[in-house]
């Protein structure tokens, strides 16, 4: 494992964790979901790095694509239903 690829992997892993943390703690739900989709894409790259192409395809197609679509559709319906949705950073009650 040459040091360079290890460094790259560490960088990728670090961003992945950081994006995940930010997605959950995002002020607006919309940004949360957008970050979650970014998280999905990073996961796809990680699967490629782990030489698991099938999983990368599945992650991209279902884990990111479809889940993202579901989340945005649900958010839209939630807004239409009028439920307050943007519990930001402080909203934890």
């Amino acid at each position, binding site marked *: 494992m040459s040091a360079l690829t290890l460094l790259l992997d560490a960088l990728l*892993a670090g961003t992945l964790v950081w994006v995940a943390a930010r997605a*959950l703690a995002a002020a607006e739900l919309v940004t949360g979901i957008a970050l979650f989709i970014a998280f999905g894409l990073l996961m796809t790259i990680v699967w490629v790095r782990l030489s698991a192409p099938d999983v990368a395809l*599945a992650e991209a197609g279902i884990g990111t694509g479809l889940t993202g679509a579901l*989340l945005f559709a649900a958010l839209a319906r939630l807004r239409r239903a009028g439920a307050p*949705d943007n519990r930001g950073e402080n909203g934890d009650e």
Partner: protein
Amino acid sequence: MTGAELYALTGIALFVIGLHGLIRYAHLMRKILALNVTGAGVFLVVAALAERGQDGTPDPVPQALVITGIVVAVAATGLALVLMLRVASATGRAELPDPRSE
């Protein structure tokens, strides 16, 4: 510290972040997001350590498990989102009443 172990540790980190989000945030959408992150973390642990096959070919079994896991996760998410919408329309709030009140 090979790449595989690095990603396994990332998986553990995602698992912890996900559980924390699930418990910490009240909004149901955030809880569902947190569930997906936890799932991703677990899948990472399942498949990451498999990459150290002897002659470099990765062990296919964990990868198959992860694919099945991902599809199960999307099924659960789909159901959870519809249930969340029903809860929101029924109670007017997309959050769960405090369980300790019972």
